[in-house]
């Protein structure tokens, strides 16, 4: 028995009390949707978890109407202090039910329990706790005195951090005085529906939070609804683009959190042990299903061999398997569609001449899996260096000078995040200045905090979530809006796909 062979240590599912069917959460109650229900499966076993309602256009109407009523009659009139107290309640309820939420998240999403338990769910609670405190301090959010809420926020979130993305969206929106209609991704609706129960336990006024489930069409109907004042979307750049087009000519305030192709730059003076761990965390955290993943490793040429050798050695110790096992490092790929995309892009990487290395590990019979993979000899024009793979696939490139590293790092239409590894503080500051990315990690990677603004440059979207900037996304300055020019024509809606980030 090698040191990697442990006895299975699965987290018990007994803590879950799931229903076999879930409806839509509208106006404080669950009700059946009018669309065709769909099954949510575990990506690790392909076993059925629950049947979930699909919201059609009429259901979207009902949800938006409920949110509007709650906004007009209750939430926009409530004191900030009271709004804050509701959010504090939610934060505490999330903490109390944290193990249950973590198990449900790992079951439904496929991510390792150690990540849902130690990262996702604690951050969810932290997000509500942080924004709860903002609710009665909006005068200090940077928009002048008496900033106004926007109204009803339409929020569409991806499948990679289902509950965490919900928290990123709902907490600041409610703190600022908006009501919300949120649509989780089709493959990961479960924890949003458990959150609806928490909303009930917190006794939040009906209609303040509405959660509707379904695929892309539901999201299109929600984002395009005439009575929506704000749109917040996290997902792929193509869908973000379509949303930006669909809201053109309206007064909807939009936040878009889209794709990325982050450069993780390792200089030859980097603290190498920490850098190896950071590279692994940067791209193999959450199976690489991370918009800000460090998917392009830029290594200074002189240490390329050492870094690649040590990475391979480290990856060979990662354990792939049951997401609910406490010793699992790499869980399941979220869906067969995503697995197909990862396979396709990896095959293209090989076909274009990059050298492929895959960690040896046993792939379970059922479910969707992809072993950690590294490509070396990658050039900037390769598709695996340009396109978001959104999986556990790392492209390794080299550089000689800081200027070359900066040029290569910025050579992408994306601009979400970047990493810098060096022992030299002045170099870190200078390089950070030159990188065109919204979040930069120096000698660390993939850190998230409710106090820290997150969001991209260029085609990674606009607006910020987190921190003071995140609350400002859901507010408008207290002075009357400038005289806008009415759009002459109503444009056809062009959104065609759901969140697939």
């Amino acid at each position: 028995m090698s040191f990697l062979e442990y006895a299975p240590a699965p987290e018990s599912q007994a803590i879950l009390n799931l229903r076999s069917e879930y409806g839509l959460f509208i106006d404080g109650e669950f009700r059946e949707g009018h669309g065709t229900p769909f099954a949510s499966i575990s990506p690790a076993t392909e076993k059925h978890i629950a049947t979930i309602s699909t919201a059609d256009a009429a259901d979207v109407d009902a949800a938006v109407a409920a949110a509007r009523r709650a906004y007009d009659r209750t939430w926009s009139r409530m004191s900030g202090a009271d709004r804050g107290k509701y959010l504090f309640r939610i934060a505490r309820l999330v903490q109390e039910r944290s193990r249950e939420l973590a198990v449900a998240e790992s079951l439904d999403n496929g991510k390792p329990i150690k990540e849902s338990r130690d990262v996702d769910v604690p951050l969810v609670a932290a997000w509500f706790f942080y924004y709860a405190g903002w609710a009665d301090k909006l005068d200090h959010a940077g928009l002048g005195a008496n900033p106004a809420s926007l109204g009803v926020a339409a929020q569409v979130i991806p499948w990679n951090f289902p509950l965490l993305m919900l928290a990123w969206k709902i907490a600041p929106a409610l703190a600022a005085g908006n009501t919300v209609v949120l649509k989780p991704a089709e493959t990961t609706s479960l924890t949003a529906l458990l959150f609806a129960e928490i909303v009930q336990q917190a006794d939040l006024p009906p209609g303040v939070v509405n959660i509707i489930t379904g695929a892309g069409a539901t999201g299109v109907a929600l984002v395009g609804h005439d009575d929506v004042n704000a749109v917040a979307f996290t997902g792929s750049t193509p869908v973000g683009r379509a949303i930006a087009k669909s809201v053109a000519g309206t007064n909807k305030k939009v936040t878009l959190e889209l794709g990325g192709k982050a450069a993780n730059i390792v200089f030859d003076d980097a603290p190498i042990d920490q850098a190896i761990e950071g590279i692994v965390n940067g791209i193999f955290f959450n199976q690489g299903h991370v918009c800000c993943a460090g998917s392009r490793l830029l290594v200074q040429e002189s240490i390329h061999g050492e870094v690649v050798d040590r990475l391979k050695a480290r990856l060979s110790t990662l354990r792939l398997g049951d997401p609910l096992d406490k010793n699992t490092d790499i869980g399941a790929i979220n869906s067969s569609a995503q697995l197909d995309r990862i396979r396709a892009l990896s095959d293209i990487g090989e076909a274009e001449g990059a050298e492929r290395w895959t960690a040896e590990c046993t792939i379970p019979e059922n479910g969707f899996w992809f072993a950690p993979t590294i490509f070396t000899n990658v050039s900037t024009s390769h598709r695996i260096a340009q396109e978001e793979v959104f999986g556990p696939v790392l492209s390794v490139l080299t550089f000689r000078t800081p200027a070359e590293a900066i040029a290569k790092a910025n050579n992408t239409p994306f601009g979400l995040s970047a990493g810098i590894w060096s022992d030299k503080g002045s170099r870190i500051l200078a390089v950070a200045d030159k990188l065109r990315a919204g979040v930069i990690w120096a000698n660390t990677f993939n850190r998230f905090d409710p106090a820290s603004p997150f969001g991209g440059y260029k085609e990674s979207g606009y607006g910020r979530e987190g921190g003071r900037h995140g609350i400002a996304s859901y507010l408008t300055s207290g002075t009357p809006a400038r005289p806008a020019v009415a759009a002459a024509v109503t444009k056809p809606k062009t959104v065609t796909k759901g969140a697939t980030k």
Partner: protein
Amino acid sequence: MTRLAVPKTYKLYIGGAFPRSESGRTYEIVSAKGAFLANASKASRKDARDAVVAARAAVGGWSGATAYNRAQVLYRVAEILEGRRAQFVAEIVDAEGVSSAVATAQVDTAIDRWVWYAGWADKYAQVAGNANPVAGPYFNISVPEPTGVVAIIAPQDSSLLGLVSAVAPALVSGNTVVVVASETLPLSAISLSEVLATSDVPKGVVNVLTGSPAEIAPWLASHQDVNALDLVGAGALDWVDLQIAAADTLKRVLTPENGPDAAAPSLGRITAFVETKTVWHTKGLI
């Protein structure tokens, strides 16, 4: 005996030079009473592209200048404008058909607006950025940075003030600008270009196109190397189409404003075209 006047040839302002339109096209500018004032260059798609190239080339230097330096350069524009008040007043009286007092008020307001925005250059980052108290051993700070190249459709009913109100705030953070001037009132825009060319504004930081906004705007809205689009003066155009075109590259977009308060001075016009960069610096354990 009266002296025969020397009329000015109005050209474009691209990359610090004053070229004619590559298309060779001009169009007649007439006074409010219909009298011929000048032939203005009618910029083409190629001119717009050249302007974007010049603007992109200028981003590094302008955004890399210290905020104190940008403030002084912008303030110097106001100084030079002040010295040429009479020229602008006469131009506006001719073009807009307003009284000298009204034209003077427009010029003075425009000068004062440059001064106001100049003062923001080394302060806005302190207002728009902040340190973030994250739960861990990190020094975490969010700072605003210019988004890059900003294309502007200037207010169409104003010779100078509308143009200044849209251009100055975009420059404060270090963006460079391609601006399409008022179609019917473009002469002051070219005179302002002469002010910019003889102040300390580096070449390419401001590029001024005259001609048809309806013709030029779509090329700027869809241009891959333009980061943001200010449609403040595009109210009469099919601006929703421009906003849709801009979405292909996810440009930051400001929508049209009408009336005398269009592009009113605000911090928001500066922060509309900045990006927030958040850097996590690891603290050592000691």
